[in-house]
């Protein structure tokens, strides 16, 4: 068995260098403060994202820029796969399948729009990621399917067929994809946790924590949205939540759901688990959209807190790989958010509040 230093020495040095080159808050502020989208795009010229400028000046299409960034993000995983072996390699591969799951969700959403909601999806279809990650998703066949049974048949060589079969009735009954999308997430995290359990002890603890925290944050986000935007009964809301969380159990989520003061409940949770970050929740907001943004920001901060902890800890663990992916995802998400905001002429202050 390779020693941790041998296993992670090279990749640790490589990824730390790359992490240090991630576009910093100062750049994001400059981007947000750019007067127009045209001027914002120019800022990328001298960065590693110069491809953004090239794609935009050639096509004028921000969605093409997003597609380019998605390709870039997926390639990060493919690239890291070259530097890891055995169980870590399998783990990274499963991490990459997140994009396949998301892509499948997007395709099925389009199918749903076309067949159930009878909408025109042709334009949206143009920007669907078309490369294979692990399985062929046969997007044209799915989009031409008449029902979910046909979709399951089209995907029969993939693990997704079973999930579609399992959730078919509920999707049809509720005329909503919630159940299917949740099951796809559960499948992804189940695979991920299975791979985490195969890792060595020190790696396992770190990966468990990060994946658990990610699930916690996703669940909090979901429950807050259920409460604010949908009128679901508590039991139904809890049903759609993901297992394998780190420290947010069903009780906390039930409290969040039942309480009139969501921020208050979250505050007491954050105080317990992440003392120091609770100050972020003191800002009062009556508007539900602003409250959602506020809560999302706190959740982001919690993840960044976990990332920082890993960066300051033992360098020779799987933590550095996880941190790299999280930070890069965060960087790309910020870029996309700001560029779209610039396109829709949203003011700097609102953009800054959002990122």
């Amino acid at each position, binding site marked *: 068995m390779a020693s941790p230093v041998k296993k992670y020495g090279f990749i640790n040095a490589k990824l730390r260098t790359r992490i240090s080159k991630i576009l910093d808050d100062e750049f994001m502020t400059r981007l947000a403060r750019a007067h127009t989208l*045209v001027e914002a795009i*120019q800022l990328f010229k001298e960065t590693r994202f110069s491809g953004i400028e090239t794609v935009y*000046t050639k096509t*004028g*299409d*921000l969605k093409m820029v997003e597609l380019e960034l998605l390709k870039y993000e997926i390639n990060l995983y493919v690239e890291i796969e070259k530097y890891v072996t055995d169980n870590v390699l399998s783990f990274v591969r499963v991490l990459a399948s997140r994009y396949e799951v998301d892509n499948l969700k997007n395709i099925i959403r389009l199918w749903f729009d076309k067949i159930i909601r009878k909408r025109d999806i042709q334009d949206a279809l143009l920007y669907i990621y078309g490369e294979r990650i692990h399985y062929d998703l046969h997007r*044209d066949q799915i989009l031409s399917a008449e029902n979910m049974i046909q979709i399951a048949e089209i995907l029969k060589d993939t693990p997704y067929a079973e999930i579609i079969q399992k959730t078919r009735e509920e999707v049809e009954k509720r005329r909503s994809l919630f159940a299917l999308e949740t099951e796809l997430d559960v499948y992804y995290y189940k695979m991920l946790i299975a791979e985490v359990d195969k890792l060595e002890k020190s790696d396992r603890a770190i990966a468990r924590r990060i994946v658990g925290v990610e699930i916690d944050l996703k669940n909090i986000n979901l429950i807050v949205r259920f409460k604010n935007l949908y009128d679901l009964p508590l039991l139904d809301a809890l049903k759609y939540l993901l297992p394998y969380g780190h420290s947010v159990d069903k009780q906390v989520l039930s409290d969040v759901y039942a309480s009139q003061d969501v921020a208050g409940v979250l505050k007491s949770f954050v105080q317990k688990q992440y003392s120091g970050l609770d100050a972020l929740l003191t800002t009062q907001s009556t508007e539900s959209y602003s409250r959602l943004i506020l809560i999302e920001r706190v959740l982001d901060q919690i993840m960044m807190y976990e990332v920082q902890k890993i960066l300051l800890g033992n360098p020779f663990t799987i933590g550095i790989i996880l941190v790299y992916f999280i930070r890069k995802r965060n960087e790309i998400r910020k870029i996309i958010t700001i560029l779209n905001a610039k396109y829709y002429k949203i003011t700097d202050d609102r953009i800054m509040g959002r990122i």
Partner: protein
Amino acid sequence: MMFTTPMKHIIAVVLDHDSDNVAKELISQGLLHFMSIRELHSPWRDKVQDVVPDTSGARIAEIKKRIESLLSITGTSVSKKDLDIEKLKPLDIDRTEKLLDDISGSIQGYRDRQKQFQQEILKLRDIKRQVNLFGDIGEGIKIHSAYSFLSIQTGSVPSSKAGDLSLAMKELPSVIIKLQEIDQHTHLLVISMKKDDSRVNRIFEQSGWLDMEITGDMQGVKEDVIGDLDVKCAVLEKEQDDLDKQAKSLIQDRTGELLDLWEICRLNELYSRVKSYFSKTARTILFSGFIPASKQKVLEESVKKITAQRCYLEWSNPVDRVKENIPSSEIPVELKNPKILSPFRMLVQNYAIPEYGSIDPTPFVAVAYFCMFGLMFGDVGQGIILVLCGIIGSLIYKSKDKGLFELSQLIIWCGISAIIFGILFGSYFGVALFKPVWFNYHGIITEHARGTGFVKDVYGILALTIYFGILVIGVGLIINCINLVAKRRWFSLFMDKGGLVGTWMYGAGVYTGWYFATHGYKELPNGYFLLFALGLPTFFFFFKAPIKFIKRKIHDPSISFTPLVPVDFFIEWFVELMEIVGGYLANTLSFMRVAGLGIAHVSLMFAFMKMAESAGTIAAIPILIFGNGLVIFLEGLSAGIQSLRLNYYEFFSKYFTGTGKAYSPVSLHSD
């Protein structure tokens, strides 16, 4: 050149109505490193007010950035070289912002049109992707594209209407292939998107379309379809490129105007910055700052000229100002040495800016770095390669990147060092082409030859690097003593470990070590010598802590002498002695890495030579090229880094106080 550039401090008072001209003159000269008068502990401090610039510096800076951003669309960069202060005039901020908004908006218009073409291209590419899924088009027609978004139809129209149909279909993402013409009817294959079916059917109706099954061979039609799609995509891409060119030419047409605006912004920005350092009374303006002493007269004359002698200028030595509570770290430092030494100045500044009034380390670093690199990487051939790389780098980066330009210059220096030491060691791409001038490094390591002088074997090489280390550390200690004398820090001069007593101990330690080594590692110098050379400074050091205590007590009588204080004295003395013995020993032995790297360099070359010898003549050439390349890259990098490390940690730690602040006057060319 020996010390940092002497500075003068100025406090100037001019009449309010002269202040604009004075500000312009100060920018034009670019000599004054400003310091707000309110930072001085002078009687004026509380009697003056800050001057609030008329224009919004932040908005101007923002406009400047916007102009740079727009100019970068055409790859036009701005230059600070030809700025002229006479062009300074007020900027109409609102009008300029509107102009930039208009330009940006126009470019966004072009981008939006490019986006429309992009969507057409994507649709055509999607058609192409789906057509490619079929074995041939006939198959696609038969299954009626069940899994596709495509509508593939065959039929005929009167030949006279075929042109109208093609024209009408141009509006939609589609492909029309003419299959054959029979009896004035043209048989066509039409591929379009299912979502456009209703529009397509309308066009068909107007053209007299008749559905019909094509029974003939459809081989080759697929290629025609794909070819047609490629042509359509290429046309649309060209349209996109044309729009991009139009967007760029919009900027190009206004480049002159934008550059002029940028210059005005830049001048206003500098003007605001200078004014922000001004303070005022009812009718006068005051400012202060530092200037190299040699430029005092220039500034004085020009200010007097501008103000027609109606000014008051008070010059002083910055060191005297320190007594008036200006922190010494506030005095700016200029390292002035020949341009040729600029790469070494970069090395010094990367570490820190030395304290004002101390010796400029640049020339010493140059000599030490040059020798260290050569001792580790002495080879004429490889040195020539480095020089060439450095020259190419310099040519590429001369006007692009100052840092990389200076790094390229450093590589030239490293190459020259490698050439000189290569001649001394007789090494030419690892081959002894000529007799070494000093000793045969390769011969000693590979045991093919004996050395000369005191460098006869590997131990001789190790000893050489230790002597070199002693020399470097010795020079460092001497520089430190000179710095302390210059700064009149007498106590530190005598009692610090880098002062006279420390130097004395180091010298004695070196002699003792040398004596011990040259007497078969069995004998030390006689007792009286040891008592005088090592015992006496050790004894002196004991008084350091008590003297410091007394000095503190004089300053602050509340400090009391407790029974633990003598224990502190003893511990401090003991720890300092340990630090001196351990520290100086480690610092000196650290220079053995120079021999280590030199030996590794020779060994690697020897290994590649052996591989080349055993591989035969033809294979030898690529092996030697690869070997030399690898050695130049890896060993060059190692030798460069180790030389830097020895300078930073062994040499600088003896004398360098990096608390200085770089001299940065506000000028037309400053950042």
